[in-house]
């Protein structure tokens, strides 16, 4: 990888009791790209995201964002530095309206008046404007996921972490979401790091993919190379159908 790193994870290890969730993991996310992270259930993907965004402290290792050591900083500071995320299990503000949820994302960089304008822009960008007065409890899955994305974008990140954002959607919706992610990456110049179970999607979306298995990085490379990687196929044993598009 030649271009400058946006995010760098260096020798990160995390144990939960006896379980080693992440074992000496190192990886780089270059500026401006869409990078994938795959692995079977329980591989440690979400744990890695939680460490990057400050929800969990690693036992060992460092996380660098644009060269600055952010290991152990609290989540809100990491957000202010420019990393936003979505959650695997969505965490909507059910009592708030869509608009207010997005404003809550925008207020950390702007005053309320400006934040409202900003929120409207993002809602428009994601074609959510019609939903702005709905409560988050009234939304369907696709809408919830988009609102969560809108909220994250409202914090004006330089790096966006998406944790299985396509889970539970149908193929048409996935297609639409993929276009959207690409558009965000291209138009807003936001680096994107995605966890995805749905192979088809990650292979089409990302330029470079890391593979985690039982906490270890077992492979990395361009998507088309990985499809033929023995270790990856083994890790996904019984899932060959899925992996070969």
């Amino acid at each position: 990888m030649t271009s400058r790193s946006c995010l760098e994870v260096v020798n990160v290890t995390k144990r939960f009791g006896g379980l080693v969730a992440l074992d000496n993991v190192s990886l780089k996310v270059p500026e401006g790209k869409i990078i994938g992270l795959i692995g079977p259930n329980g591989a440690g993907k979400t744990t890695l995201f939680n460490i990057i965004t400050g929800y969990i402290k690693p036992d060992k290792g460092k996380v660098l964002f644009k060269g600055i050591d952010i290991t152990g900083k609290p989540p809100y500071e990491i957000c202010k530095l420019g990393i936003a995320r979505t959650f695997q299990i969505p965490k909507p503000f059910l009592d708030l309206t869509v608009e207010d949820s997005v404003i809550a994302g925008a207020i950390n960089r702007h005053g309320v008046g400006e934040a409202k304008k900003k929120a409207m822009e993002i809602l428009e960008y994601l074609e959510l404007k019609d939903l702005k007065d709905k409560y988050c409890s009234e939304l369907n899955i696709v809408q919830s996921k988009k609102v969560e994305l809108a909220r994250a974008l409202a914090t004006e990140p330089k790096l966006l972490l998406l944790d299985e954002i396509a889970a539970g959607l149908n193929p048409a919706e996935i297609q639409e979401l993929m276009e959207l992610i690409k558009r965000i990456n291209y138009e807003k110049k936001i680096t994107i790091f995605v966890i995805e179970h749905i192979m088809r999607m990650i292979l089409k979306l990302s330029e470079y993919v890391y593979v985690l298995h039982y906490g270890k990085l077992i492979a990395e490379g361009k998507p088309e190379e990985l499809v033929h990687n023995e270790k990856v196929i083994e890790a996904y044993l019984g899932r060959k159908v899925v992996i070969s598009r």
Partner: protein
Amino acid sequence: MKSYIKRMLPIMIGIVLSFLVPVMVGFDEFYILLATTILVYSVVASAWNIIGGFGGQLDLGAAAYLGLGAFITGNLLLKFGITPWIGMFIGGITATAVAIVIGYPTFRLGVKGVWYALSTISVVYILQTLFLMWEEVGGPVEKWLPRGEASLYYLSFRTYIPYYYIALVFLIITLIINRLVEHSRLGYSLKALAYDEDAAMSLGINVQRTKLKALMIYSFIVGTFGGFYVCFTGFMHPVVDFSIPFSIEIVVLGIVGGLGTIYGPLLASLILVSLKEYLRGTFGAIIMGIYPAIYAIALILIILFAPQGLASVLKEAFYFIITKLRIRTMRGG
């Protein structure tokens, strides 16, 4: 502009009507006392709304702040003749200081939900006990404030009318603060973290600091108001001023009013405290315990059947009536 007037109109009518209450009840002391009592609950419940309604923190410490304000103001007046207006301010500051001492570790250590409720109510117990034992300023016998000439300086009057107006001003200020908070960065942050702290943090919200700010505003209002409260009741007693049931009642009013709205706690206090006082007047002397029992049943029924709170029930009822009327007028016309 037109919608602005339309929105402000009910508020204006409310303010005008509330200023006219003493006139409407024909300056009857009994009703003015009743109205002032309702205002006392409304002020504290509306202040609680900032941390409890917007921020979702089940704070059961209202009586701790009220009592601190009351005892500080009362003692400064009794021992040094210091005007309650200054006493109030010192009471408010002290209440805020105590709130920070409790709130900082609580929020820092991530004490949430019901654990937060339990820790705040134990603070009320601790303060009540301290003031019961510290006989110089408290003690088990009530201490009466001097009731001399009527005086605004000493907040001492021979009728309840001035107390009513002062409490009303407190309420209006508290509601304005609510409104300002709701539309500020603090308000959005509070509403977000009330539902999900992890998600709020991912948006750059400093959860600890946000909660602490809300707690400070709330405790300052209630502490200051405690200084008024002691002049209104005319005496200090640890069990009355650091009252556990009062703390609990405030939270119940907040919940049955409807969380997250400015009008919820206000409406709940207006309606339920009037109901309680009416019941006290009607049944209080006949059978002991019957009026609080009916009051409690009313609270229980609202929790059971109106989960969104009184505010939304009234709103729905209002729209229901409006649509009915519209249909009728349309048919008529």
